[in-house]
């Protein structure tokens, strides 16, 4: 069977003195760099407490698996394919990047790069087009992690000749036979993903880890906004902070709300308004002027007049 490891990460341990050999898991945790990646995840990402908890659990499991393999207790490479479910902007891609790094540090993928695709990258337009496209993506992703966003679009039950089915079959085959070469993460809305797994049990049986990404709270979104601005050398004036707080409350209740992504878009538009305001003022500007977003830059948003603050307009789903 292909999934059998022929060369374990290191040769099985035999205690030289006949006594019990021991592995210090805590030391492995630090030496593998896993500790650092998880700590970075904690400090770099706002919120996502259950996600971070799941990542620690998976990390521990893999670390133990690795130790077991070294005692010759593990014969089959673990299934590492995952599903990340949650609403848009909840950090799935960001966490996937970190996951690729974790798997790389533990030696479960060789390169640790992340290839992000959607249905259009995998499925072709005509007969004979899909297999080469899917294989092309798989080849690029091998040695790393393949992240399929909105994976359920691969499956279109309403069209029985949909080329998506061909991509699914190739994917399933590689996910089963080349577990050492590739980890697949399927991502999307929780409810649609659930329906997708129900219709395609082959995927469900090959996915070992399900991670649910909750929506951010208002406070977390404000913290995310503060970090984004800080990273670009901007800050909110006290009045603007107040306005931003109200903005987030209103926006969260609106349709097409995309968590962190909506916050980033809102701040991009605020920067645009700030620039226009400074330009129109026709007076010399100070460094303070250039870094400060004022309340008016936020309050000009359509959100406050009941509209959806979206530019360019979101495409209809």
């Amino acid at each position, binding site marked *: 069977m292909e999934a059998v490891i022929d060369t374990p990460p290191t040769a099985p341990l035999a205690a030289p003195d006949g006594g019990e050999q021991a592995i210090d898991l805590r030391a492995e945790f630090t030496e593998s760099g896993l500790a650092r990646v998880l700590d970075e995840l904690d400090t770099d990402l706002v919120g996502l407490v259950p996600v971070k908890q799941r990542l620690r659990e998976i990390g521990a499991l893999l670390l133990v698996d690795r130790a077991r393999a070294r005692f010759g207790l593990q014969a089959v490479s673990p299934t590492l394919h995952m599903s990340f479910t949650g609403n848009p902007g909840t950090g799935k891609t960001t966490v996937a990047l970190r996951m690729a790094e974790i798997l790389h540090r533990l030696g479960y993928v*060789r*390169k640790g790069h992340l290839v992000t695709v959607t249905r259009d990258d995998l499925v072709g337009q005509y007969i004979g087009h899909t297999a080469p496209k899917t*294989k092309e993506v*798989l*080849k*690029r992703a*091998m*040695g*790393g992690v393949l992240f399929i966003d909105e994976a359920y679009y691969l499956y279109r039950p309403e069209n029985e000749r949909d080329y998506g089915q061909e991509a699914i079959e190739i994917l399933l085959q590689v996910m089963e036979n080349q577990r*050492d070469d590739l980890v697949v993460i399927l991502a999307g809305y929780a409810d649609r993903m659930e329906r997708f797994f129900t219709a395609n049990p082959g995927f469900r049986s090959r996915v070992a880890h399900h991670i649910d990404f909750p929506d951010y709270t208002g406070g977390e979104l404000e913290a995310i906004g503060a970090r984004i601005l800080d990273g670009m050398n901007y800050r909110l004036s006290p009045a603007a902070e107040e306005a931003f707080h109200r903005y987030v409350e209103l926006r969260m209740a609106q349709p097409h709300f995309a968590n962190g992504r909506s916050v980033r878009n809102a701040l991009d538009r605020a920067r645009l308004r700030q620039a226009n305001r400074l330009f129109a003022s026709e007076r010399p500007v100070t460094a303070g002027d250039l870094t400060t977003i004022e309340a008016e830059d936020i309050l000009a948003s359509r959100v406050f007049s009941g509209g959806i603050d979206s530019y360019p307009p979101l495409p209809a789903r």
Partner: protein
Amino acid sequence: MRITQGAFSFLPDLDDGQITRQVQYCIDKGWAVNIEFTDDPHPRNTYWEMWGMPMFDVPDAAGVMFELNACRKAHAGRNYIRVSAFDSTHTWESLRLSFITDRPADEPGFALDRQEVDGRSIRYTTRAYAADRPEGARY
């Protein structure tokens, strides 16, 4: 006889682990790896059939091995298969490594035809015994 084209023909046939390591060496150098096959191994047959295009954006040898295995499924046993690596660096822009990974079980080799001309001069022609049969039915 054993055709000795390619970089490693004097060694025992490479196993998949060895092929993978050579492929990864090429990828790490930034070269695009290509798979080709033929049933006409004449030393001047430059253009073997391409199994797809050179793989320009594959960072791990597993991607190349995936294609090599597909090519083997279609052609092994009846064809020679080789792996080559292209380097696009200015003033090189050609192959950097090329080696045979698969060969037919039986290699009948070549005849050397001599045509006596102009006194002691001889015109030489190298002809693969297998090439007497039509393409696709040679091995």
